[in-house]
């Protein structure tokens, strides 16, 4: 290099100073941001069932082929109705449990007689695709005990949830990973 002999030294010193400042600044900035609220836990996505309008996007927009969102049932809220509007379409061909009479496109709801006149509706997780048809039926005409939730054994916890982007009701938000569900509880209505 044909610079004056002092320059490389000065440059090297400057570079070292910059490096030290950069490393310290970065470390400080990230640690500061992470510690800002005195909580450093992980966060995961969840949808707020009180906002959800069961539009059907949950089934199709998840990055997984089989959506991470599935229907769940708060049994304590359920009326155990015989004519469940989450199970039967508004005009059932007949009140039998054949697939053609069910609202669920995959037959994921299991109807079981409990005692006269009550029936229990359980979601078969492996079949549910999270389309929200039953949710719509249940919240429009029933107790709203069927609703959608991100299932955390399936969710990849994408940095930007693809469903959150597509959700018309902005129902998705980040929740602490140690309390990752927004479950509906009886008597607690929005």
């Amino acid at each position, binding site marked *: 290099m*044909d610079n004056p002999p002092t320059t490389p030294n000065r440059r*090297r010193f400057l570079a070292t100073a*910059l490096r030290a400042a*950069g*490393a310290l600044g*970065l470390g400080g*900035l*990230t*640690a500061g*941001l*992470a510690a*800002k609220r005195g909580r450093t836990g*992980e*966060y995961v996505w969840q949808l707020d069932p*009180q*906002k959800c*309008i069961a539009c059907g996007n949950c089934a199709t927009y998840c*990055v*997984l*082929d089989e959506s991470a969102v*599935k229907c*769940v049932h708060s*049994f304590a809220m*359920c*009326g*155990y*109705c*015989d*004519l469940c509007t989450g199970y039967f379409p508004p*005009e059932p061909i*007949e*009140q039998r449990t054949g697939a053609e009479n069910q609202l669920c496109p995959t037959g994921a709801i299991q109807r079981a007689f*409990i*005692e006269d*006149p*009550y029936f*229990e509706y359980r979601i078969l997780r492996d079949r549910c695709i999270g389309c929200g048809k039953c949710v719509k039926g249940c*919240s429009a*005409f*029933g*107790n*709203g005990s069927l609703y959608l939730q991100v*299932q*955390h*054994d399936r969710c*990849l*916890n994408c*940095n*930007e949830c693809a469903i959150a*982007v597509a959700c*018309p*009701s*902005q129902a998705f938000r*980040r929740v602490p*990973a140690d309390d*990752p*569900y927004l*479950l509906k509880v*009886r008597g607690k*209505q929005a």
Partner: protein
Amino acid sequence: MKRLRRVPCPRLRGHGKCRKRRSLPTRAWAGHRIGVGILFIVFLCISCRISPAAERFPPPDFTDHQLPATQAPAAPSPVYEYADLAFLIAALGLASYLAVRRRSRRGLFVLGIVSLAWLGFWREGCICPIGAIQNVTLAAFNSTYVLPLTVAAFLALPLIVTLFFGRTFCAAVCPLGAVQELVALKPLRVPPWLDQALGLLAYVYLGLAVLFSATGTAFLICRYDPFVGFFRRSMGADMLVFSLSFLVLGIFIGRPYCRYLCPLGVLLGWFSRISQWHVKIPPDRCIQCRLCEEACPYGAIRTPTTVQPPADHRRGRRRLALLIVLLPILIVLGFGLGWMLRQPLARLNPTVRLAERFYQEQTGRVQGTTGATDAFRNTGRPADALYAEARSLLGSFGLAGGLFGAYVGLVVGGKLIYLSVRRRRTDYQPDRAACVSCGRCFWYCPAEQALWKNNPAACGLATMPEKT
């Protein structure tokens, strides 16, 4: 109707048969029931608007039936995140050792594949340091978002390592880099002017990513990640086309994403400029064979400069002075342009979009409703609150857009100045910002190979004279 009427109604338990069906009438409509039924539906619809999930049918009190629990499988334990972090630290250390000290291209290649397998295919591309830029930005601007420590570390560690060893993260840790490294089979030379011009795209992309995450609008980097779909082995048709074209492009243009889009690459490039131990081609023994220049698929080798005639030198100085005067003008111009762009920029924000659509619907400018406006009406929130929120967002987009424009002006002006400053080089050197430390240049260098043959143990950092 007859068949249905036999069904006891849960609402009237203890009162015998149900007198009035709660369900919608079936096919057997009976004259006046149509009206009643419709009224009933309307009533239900209205009532469910006010309270989305009223207890219309009191849940029964079973004596001997145990209610099942709501299914809520736990989130995977944070152990995975800490394992990722441990892997990142180990891989960064190993990559730096392999690139700078051990000088092993083969080692870097293998490590790249391991990283691709771990961070890419096993952990399915999330969490990644490129995307972490957005989390950090969001945490800086949004007080309700808490930045997970692992995410913060995922951004900070590669940057700090780059400060000392150059872009060894890009060489063998980044899964996106590894994919492109694997497909770079027939890299063509991109003309330097085009290379520099396209390089500006990455700056713009970084600016946009920061803008949209600061306003809490979107995580662009994640949305348009070209390879994450492969990692998850699922993607939409449009993303598939996008990803495949990047893959095919990557055969002919080395690392197109890294060089022309990656926002982290911009930051890493700047950190790498002042790195302490950056990979070096053995420069003291350079025989000007130009093999390194040929070997680098990313156009990162800078060639020795020739002596400039004095007339050119004077002209160059004048141009530089002009560009320095131009810089503030570009910045101000950029600010104005960015501010003018606030509306189209803000339209990416779901709240702004909703407010706009809702306003149009209310004033009869458009017919029909959308899912979003329906959902908004359902909440019963006053429209004014929505408009106020959208207006304040638009205000922040004005400022953010202006700053973004000014930043783009600065980048363009800075690039022009950078290009017109002449640096003297006597041998072939990797450009510290552009070099991803892949190791091909010294791997192919005859001087290095001779060194390996004569004294393998001596090869490495210790024998390389410190060059600044």
